[in-house]
């Protein structure tokens, strides 16, 4: 009989504690959602969609030449025994202008670069290369984004590193900034 009040006090304390549990759970959920909404790198606005084909052979595609006098590009042209870059660009794409000097720098370092011109007219491609530099060996005209969709690329500019066997080693999403040049050179060296 004597220990009964003690037990009641204990259960009361327990009940008080339990009352807080839903609030704690709600706070955890709220924190999780606000984090994902404002800071998460999976928030819809900031998400870059990576190609699932990195590490796999280049899918089949064959593109007509974009400029007269310059060969077009097909997947067979990429297994040359030497690693190379495939650059998705377009004359209507502003960040493509920003990365042009870096592409020229890579070209001067001896890197072979092929291009896929996305939804672009020959005269616009010609004017773009005249103005911002022309680092390309082959340029395929991807008039309906078919090659872009086949490679799992989701925009311009994007750059794929392809090894000598035609296997995609790396995908660079967005413009190549000066600080990305060493990374790309290292990836090309690693693919050798």
């Amino acid at each position, binding site marked *: 009989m004597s220990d009964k009040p003690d037990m009641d006090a204990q259960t009361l304390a327990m009940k008080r504690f339990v009352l807080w549990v839903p609030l704690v759970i709600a706070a955890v959920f709220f924190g999780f959602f606000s984090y994902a909404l404002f800071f998460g790198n999976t928030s819809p606005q900031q998400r870059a*969609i990576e190609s699932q084909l990195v590490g796999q052979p280049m899918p089949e595609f064959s593109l007509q030449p974009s400029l007269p006098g310059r060969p077009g590009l097909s997947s067979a042209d990429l297994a040359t025994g030497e690693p190379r870059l495939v650059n998705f660009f*377009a004359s*209507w794409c502003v960040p493509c202008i920003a990365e042009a000097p870096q592409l020229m720098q890579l070209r001067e370092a001896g890197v072979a670069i092929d291009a896929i011109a996305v939804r672009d007219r020959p005269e616009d491609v010609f004017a773009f290369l005249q103005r911002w530099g022309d680092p390309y060996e082959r340029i395929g005209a991807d008039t309906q984004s078919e090659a872009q969709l086949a490679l799992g690329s*989701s*925009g311009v500019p994007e750059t794929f590193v392809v090894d000598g066997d035609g296997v995609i080693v790396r995908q660079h999403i967005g413009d190549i900034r000066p600080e990305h040049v060493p990374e790309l050179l290292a990836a090309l060296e690693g693919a050798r």
Partner: protein
Amino acid sequence: MIRGLVLLFLAAFLTGPVHGQSRMAEAEWANQQLPDPADEAEAKALMESLRCLVCQGQSIADSDADMASDMRALVRRRIAAGEEPEDIRAWLVERYGRWITYDPPMDAVTWPLWLLPLLFVGFGVWLARGRFRSRKRES
């Protein structure tokens, strides 16, 4: 002061973000229906459940982005060639990951989404039963 405000107002409207937009004409079938209504219905259902890569959060049926119109053209072309919608979806998932589909398949990663609600309901029923029982005993 007022002149400053007017200038600010003009500046806000005259300068906008620079959007890259292709000057190419849209692809054939991007915005045309297929001649066979059954094909078109299949294509439409598929397009409504594929996510646009540019305007993320819109389906390619709703988006005005160039890339979405090229994706609609791809879907209609392949449906017209006799390909199954689910094969086209699989082809895209292979390239862009399951993120591209609004209708994710049930597999090792997604099964908790289906199973967890059932578990929660079961837990709720169990909890409620416990409460009803103890009330009965008290009365």
